[in-house]
């Protein structure tokens, strides 16, 4: 009997360990290559307060971020705002929304502007504050900000019916490294 209990204990422990490992894998599925310094933040997509859009699907987002959609439902021209290359937020957008790397993204827009498929190239700003101010000033602008950088001057939209505070939100950005 004692031998049986001990075998049972070993078996349960093994199962729990495997389950823990698996869970850890699942949580880090998209950033296994990134160093895990602290908990990750969600990346919110922000638009002007006057923009009537509340929710966008991921495919729609991709079209917007690739310049394939030029106007909002209210007729306002879509102006894409990006952060400078090298910023983790930009990397997340390129990877998770555009599904491109930096070179492919730049080539896409060069080609698009040249052929006329894309009307306006994205605006590039240096800081999250700049992105926020730009979106505040331009009614058709769309940009992205960490949740911690949000304020009432801009509006965060939902992606696939999930907001930045919701479980299962798809865009995550690593925390800022302290300099």
């Amino acid at each position, binding site marked *: 009997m004692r031998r049986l209990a001990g075998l049972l204990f070993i078996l349960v422990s093994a199962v729990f360990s495997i389950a823990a490992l698996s869970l850890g894998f699942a949580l880090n599925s998209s950033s296994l290559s990134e160093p895990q310094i602290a908990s990750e933040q969600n990346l919110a997509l922000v638009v002007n307060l006057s923009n009537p859009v509340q929710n966008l699907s991921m495919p729609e987002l991709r079209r917007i971020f690739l310049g394939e959609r030029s106007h909002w439902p209210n007729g306002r*021209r879509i*102006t894409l705002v990006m952060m400078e290359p090298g910023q983790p937020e930009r990397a997340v957008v390129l990877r998770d929304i555009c599904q491109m790397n930096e070179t492919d993204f730049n080539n896409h827009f060069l080609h698009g502007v040249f052929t006329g498929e894309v009307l*306006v190239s994205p*605006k*590039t*700003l*240096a*800081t999250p504050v*700049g992105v926020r*101010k*730009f979106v505040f*000033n*331009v*009614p*058709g*602008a769309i940009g992205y900000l960490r949740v911690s950088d949000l304020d009432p001057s801009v509006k965060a939209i939902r992606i696939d019916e999930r907001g930045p505070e919701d479980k299962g939100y798809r865009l995550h950005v690593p925390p800022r490294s302290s300099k």
Partner: protein
Amino acid sequence: MAGPAALLDRVLALASPYNSSLLLLIVFLVVTVVGLFVIRDLHTTNVEAQKIYAGSVQGLQRIGELQYEVQETRRSTFYALTTNDSNLQLEYADQSREADRLVNEGISEYLRQARMPHEIEVGRRLQLDWSGYLGVRNEVLASILEGSTKEAVNLDLKGGVPSFERVRQDLQEIKRLYDGQASQQLANVAATSRRTILRLIGILGITLALASASVWAIQRSKMLGAIQLAKLQMEFVASVSHELRTPLAVISSAADNIADGLVGGKDQLKSYGSAIQNQCRQITELVNQILLFASTKEGKNRYTLRPLQVSRIIDAVLDNTAELVQEIGFVIERRIETGLPWVMGDLSALSQCLQNLIVNAVKYSGESRWIGIHAFVHDSEERSNREIRITVQDRGMGIDRLEMPHIFEPFYRGAAVTAAQIHGTGLGLSLAKSIAEAMGGTLSVVSELAVGSIFTLHLPIVEKQESEMASVTSKPDPSIRT
């Protein structure tokens, strides 16, 4: 002209003792009134000036700042056009928004302080036009940030320029309102200043006139006083001359008769001698009185003060005047209270004082032939105020109330006395008063026309009863050199 001039002279005569005080009071009052007016007007001017500053000047300053910030809004917007760098464009956008925040605050402040309906109307219009311009400005900024420069410029030309022009005109109108207010307030201040100057000139003119009139009045009063004194002195000389001439005429006549041998017999000679004696006595008394008055004025009197019984003083006086009183048929009623305390005085001087009062009572009794002399103690709650009073009363013509202040002046003789041709030198009461004061007392009078007069000699009571020999000199006159 004689009527008003006589009235003026009478008024001046009444006011003469107070001329300097009156003049000072008038000048003080006028200066005070002028000062109050000036202070009031200065205060009004100061308040107006503060209103101008608080209202118009500060208002103009605010409008100037508003105009600058409005321009700054537009300027910053256009600076954004000069660059393609989105970060720089955002900075200019921030500047523009900061400027329009200041403009909004300025407009709110203006509306808060506006009082007149027109000011409020212009303020609201400015607020509306500014909101309209900001709408266009926001679109222009958005176009610039989006990179649509041409669109931004078109938007501004189409909507921004006219709406900005409306804002500029609204600000100009407000500025004109403030200018108008300031001009009006400046005009008020100028008008107040003019009024103040005119008032000052008027009041100073009145002051000058009053001061001149007062100086003239004082000079005239002094002149009248000098004329009056000269007149009194002439009357004194005339009166003395007459007083001397009558006995001298009797003496001369008697002497002539004796020299001419017209007087025979011992009895007749005795009669003439007696007449000459009486006249000589009268002349002697007159001369003594004049000399006594002169020595009083020169401060050379020496009195021997000692404790005296009142009854002794009165008896001495009655002795001296017995012959005169009996000759004319007067009755003197003598009432002396028993147990009267002693008084300090010179017997001879006090006798002379009371004698003068009795002689006056005889002269001015008219048809009455009664004189009363009463001596008593006047009690008072304060021991120091107890005194002996000796009154000489007559039932004669009395003294006019208007002449009462003058009867103790030397050489003064009332108009009624002069009209009745009652002889005298005008020195009797003056001498009596001097003597009373030298004894430490006073002389007072109560009189009523056609009823009579009561002259009262007030003498202090002696506390000690021992005899004291003391020599006292009367107070020297500071105007006389020794």
